[in-house]
């Protein structure tokens, strides 16, 4: 009897486990920007929401951080992307959802240091309690979302097809999607995947 109830417990546990591991809560294409009016503290000590910075032609929300080697490897490429499109009506906000209690290198102070040192040409903000990441269904860094002029999701995923090695990039997914968006075309590849660092969710 004891063994049976234990088995039942284990099976229930497994089912619960499976239920929480799915990627299905990812924001669907065509969705509005979640929590677009929630104010976040930035590295230049402003309080901004995604709506505050939204671009006339499009808005990029990038789940970002300091420490992750995939972010580090993408830093220059992302800066180049932002510089290419900032005068074309595309606004960019990078959001750090990692709990600094878990990763000390992702504290607001360190974010300020990085923004200054690497001359980030975009808003870099802190996602208190990872509420924005949760609402987006973001899982990792880097994790990029591109919204159109009407603030509907048109692209989600990676910056390009070779995050770990810039020399092997064949497809610049985000750049292509942005160009298509600006040209009023349908997005050919509206989602992509890359290996990334899991978001370090705050402990309850």
């Amino acid at each position, binding site marked *: 009897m004891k063994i049976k109830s234990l088995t039942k417990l284990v099976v229930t546990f497994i089912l619960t486990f499976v239920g929480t591991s799915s990627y299905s809560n990812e924001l669907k294409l065509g969705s509005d920007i979640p929590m677009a009016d929630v104010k976040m503290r930035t590295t230049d000590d402003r309080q901004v929401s995604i709506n505050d910075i939204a671009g006339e032609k499009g808005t990029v929300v990038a789940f970002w951080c300091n420490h992750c080697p995939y972010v580090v490897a993408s830093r220059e490429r992302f800066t180049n992307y932002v510089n290419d499109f900032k005068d074309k009506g595309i606004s960019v906000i990078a959001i750090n959802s990692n709990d600094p209690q878990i990763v000390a290198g992702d504290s607001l102070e360190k974010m300020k240091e990085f923004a200054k040192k690497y001359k980030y040409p975009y808003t870099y903000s802190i996602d208190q309690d990872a509420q924005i990441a949760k609402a987006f269904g973001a899982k990792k860094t880097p994790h990029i979302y591109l919204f159109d002029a009407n603030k509907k999701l048109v692209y989600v995923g990676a910056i390009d*097809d070779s995050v770990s090695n810039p020399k092997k990039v064949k497809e610049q997914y985000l750049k292509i999607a942005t160009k298509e968006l600006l040209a009023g075309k349908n997005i050919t590849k509206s989602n992509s*995947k890359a290996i990334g660092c899991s978001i370090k969710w705050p402990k309850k």
Partner: protein
Amino acid sequence: MRYLIAISIIITTSSSLILYADPILKELNVEDAQKLTQNNKHKLLIINFWATWCAPCVKEFPSFVKGRNKYKNQDVEVIFISHDFEDKQAEVKEFLKRYQVDWPSYIKVGYDEPYINSFSKDWSGALPATFLYNDKGELLHFVESEINEEDLFKTIEGYLDFLKKQK
């Protein structure tokens, strides 16, 4: 006395060489990854996706080594696939050596997207991640977050029990 020290140094060095031989680290592309799961004959195959720089991966790593040793006699195998950058193989080997992983491990090479989807369309690509397969190479379960030892062992036992009942 000097001879004694010299001899003891030789003994210590040679014994550690025997005990901790260089770990086997093979490159794994998308085709190899598919073969790895499809050709699985172990009752339960656990694949752990990790990287040396990934703090939660490093934290859970010893539990997987322990789990492998604990359930090996029930035909459970644990395979580690490192997602360190391709030029970091020496660091990966050093890490595997430290944890005495004396069975073959892998390091992922090539493009991400086909590789991620070959394991599961539902996997975002976040590390750490852990996948469980049966002896037909079918995916039983996956989780894309850190697992603590208790949960890992419960999951292994739960599936061993589940597979036994299926037969």
